[in-house]
Structures are given as structure tokens and as C-alpha cells.
């Protein structure tokens, strides 16, 4: 069963990609006769997965600070590493979409800035880990920094865009549709289903990769432990 599940996951993601290109109708209001909307089936799930990964990293770090069990620190570190890949892909796909839709890769949109700051924050987390030799101190200080990330995140993602002068980003419309199930302009039920299926696929992919990474890290820790 364990060998079948990854293949099922790949099949699910591959089907989502095929559906995004062949089944989803072009959305109204998007550039290139609505064809640019197909990028959102990758960009939005990647951004959500990155958000879930960083949230999970913060929770695992808080658990480490409470229990001091190394497995929680390994889990937090793995979540940040994989979350960063998703965050980078979300940023790049977002920039490509912005070029097609708004005419420039970078538009000073508050949400572009938020995700870039998140990228820098968790890259800094990894830089911090690389600069502390003692494993216990490394886990403690990086854990505190990841929990601080949970505190700063609402200001970056929810409060800072409120004081921004403008936002071109269509995310609130899409989020509302996905969260409430209400259909709005430019989002039909097929597209919504593919978007949710893509998000599910990427999130399961994240947890699968996370499982592999933490198991590998546990083996490395066992090997490095003095006998």
C-alpha cells in the first residue's frame, strides 16, 4: 500500500495539470483571452501550501519549545525547507502571471510584497540554523524565530494590505469563492473544483515530502549521535 500511495498522488497531480489545461474554461477578465487564468491552478495552490507549511513549522516549533523533543525540531526544519520551495514557486509563477496580466513582473502589489517577505523570513530561519553549531541551542533559537514568524504573519498577510494604497491582486475574490462556495464573476464550478483538487494534491505532496525529509533527518541524527 505504501508504494501505491505515492503513485496515486502523482496520478492525482498529473490529472489536475491535464484538467487545468484541457478542461478548465478560460476565465473572464484575464489576459490572453482568459488563457492566463490557467497559471492560477498552480500559483494559488502553491501559495496555500507554502502558507500551510510555514504554519505547521510554527506549530512544530512551539511544540519543541514546550516538550524539547528533537523530532519536533526536525519536523519544523523540514516544513520550512519544503515550504520555501513552494513559496519560491508561488512567487515565480505569480510574477509570470503578473507579467501577462499587468504588464510587469513586479507591481508593488501588497500581496507580492507579503509573500516575498515570507520568503526572506524563512530563508533567514535556515541561515540562522546554519550559524549555530550546538544542536540544542540551534533548535531552541530557531524554534523561537519560527514561533515569532507566526506572530508576524497576520500583520504581513492581513493587516499590512489594509493600509496599502492599492492592490491589483484578485485573490480575495477567488478565496471568497473557494471558502464560501459562492460563485463569482470569472470562476465557474469546474475551475473551482480543479483549483481545490490542485490545492489538495500539493498539500498531500507537501506532507509526503515532509515525512521523507524528517525520516531522513532522524537517521542522520542517529548516525551523528556519539555511541
Amino acid at each position, binding site marked *: 500500500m505504501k508504494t501505491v500511495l505515492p503513485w496515486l498522488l502523482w496520478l492525482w497531480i498529473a490529472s489536475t495539470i491535464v484538467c487545468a489545461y484541457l478542461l478548465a474554461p478560460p476565465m473572464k477578465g484575464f489576459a490572453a483571452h482568459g488563457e492566463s487564468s490557467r497559471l492560477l491552478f498552480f500559483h494559488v495552490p502553491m501559495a496555500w501550501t507554502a502558507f500551510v507549511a510555514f504554519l505547521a513549522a510554527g506549530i512544530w516549533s512551539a511544540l519543541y519549545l514546550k516538550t524539547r523533543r528533537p523530532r519536533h525540531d526536525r519536523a519544523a526544519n523540514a516544513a520550512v525547507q519544503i515550504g520555501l520551495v513552494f513559496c519560491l514557486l508561488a512567487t515565480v509563477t505569480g510574477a509570470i502571471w503578473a507579467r501577462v496580466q499587468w504588464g510587469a513582473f513586479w507591481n508593488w502589489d501588497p500581496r507580492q510584497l507579503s509573500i516575498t517577505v515570507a520568503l526572506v523570513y524563512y530563508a533567514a530561519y535556515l541561515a540562522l540554523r546554519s550559524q549555530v553549531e550546538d544542536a540544542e*541551542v540551534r533548535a531552541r533559537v530557531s524554534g523561537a524565530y519560527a514561533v*515569532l514568524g507566526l506572530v508576524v504573519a497576520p*500583520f504581513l498577510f492581513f493587516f499590512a494590505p489594509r*493600509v496599502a494604497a492599492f492592490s491589483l491582486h484578485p485573490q480575495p475574490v477567488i478565496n471568497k469563492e473557494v471558502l464560501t462556495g459562492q460563485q463569482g464573476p470569472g470562476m465557474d464550478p469546474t475551475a473551482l473544483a480543479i483549483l481545490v483538487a490542485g490545492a489538495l494534491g500539493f498539500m498531500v505532496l507537501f506532507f509526503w515530502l515532509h515525512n521523507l525529509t524528517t525520516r531522513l533527518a532522524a537517521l542522520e541524527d542517529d548516525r551523528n549521535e556519539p555511541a
Partner: protein
Amino acid sequence: MSDPGSTSAAAWVAEAAAVFAKDWRCEFRTRYALNTLGLFAFTTLVVVSLVLGPVGVAPGLATTVLPVILWLIVLFAVTAGLPRIFVAEEETHTATALRLAATPSALFAGKLLYGFTVVLALEALITPLFLAMVQLEARRPDLLVAALLAGGYGLATGSTLVASIVAQARGKSALFAVLLLPVLVPGLLFAVQLTRAAVGGEAPGVEVQMLLLYDGTLTVAGLMLFPTIWNP
């Protein structure tokens, strides 16, 4: 018979005050932070006014652009000087004595108060000079003072917490800036917007509440996280 709660609260305040007084005493002996922050900020200010001076900023853009430059000067000065808050304790091997002498939360509060007063001193020096050199008028001085107080407090809180983290790592100075900037981005954004309202003479939006919320949240997070960072 005295209330044990009030006794412990008084002891906590006394510990925090002792840390604050100790840090200022050390500062007056070495003048490290004041010299570094003050000179760094002043040099940056001179460079900015040299670059902007002959060209100037279009009147329409001045209220938008210049507040950003003011906060960048303060931010870079803080980044250069405030890591010393905890790094000095590790380098002079006084961290262990501090761990024994004060409860972590009182130590954090004392260090935070020290950092805040240093930032306030820096802002008091730089802001009038900046306004005079770039010929910018604060139409709402009350808002400017609020931005400098609340924004400065946010800078000091984030810096104190991150300084305690980098004190236990290698490559402290570079790492301090890398770790600190993403933490301070929301607070700086609110402070810049509030400063824009102050120089533009506009009524503020939700920036004051956001800045106070940010400051309060960072303080609570600092008081909760610092004991785990500080105590092995």
C-alpha cells in the same frame, strides 16, 4: 503582612530597572551604541542630503518619498548598533551572571527599555536635522511624535528579541540584519504611513491602531519567547 504578589511584582520591576541602569552605565563608559548609531545615522543623513540636495524631490512626491528615507536611516542605524544589547553580554562573558541575577522576563524588559531609550535618543537627534536638511515640514507634529514613539518602540522590541537570538550564533552582525528586517517590515510600513500623514497634514487611517497592535503583540511574544531563548 505584605501581599506576595505585589512583592514579586516589585522585585520584577527592581530587576528590570537594575538591568536598564546597568546597560546605561556601561553605555556611558564605552559610548558604543550612541557613537555607532548617532554617527551612522548622521553620515547617512549627510549622504542623503548630498544626493537629494541639488536635485531635490518634487513637492508632490516629497511627502511620499522622504518619510521612507527617514525611517530607512533609523532602521540602518538600529541594525548597526543594537545587536550589542546581547552580543556584548556573550563576548564579555557576563551572560551567566545575568542569568543568575535576573528573571528572564525582567531582563528582557530592562534590555527593551534600554534599546527603546537609545532609539528615542537617535530619533530626537536625527528627525529635526532631517526635516531641516530636506526642508520638510511636519504639518501634524502630534502624529509625527506618535509615529516616532510607536515606530521606535516596535524597532526596539524586534531588535531586542532578535539580538538575543543572534547572540548565540556565529556571524552575528550580518545575521542580525537578515533576521531583523522581515520581523520589522509590518511595523515600518505602519510607521511610514503615519509619518506620511504627519508631513502631509492628513487625518490618519488605521495606522495608529495597527502600530499599537504590532507593538503590543511583539512585546507579549518577546516576554513569552525570551525565557526559552535565554535559558539553556
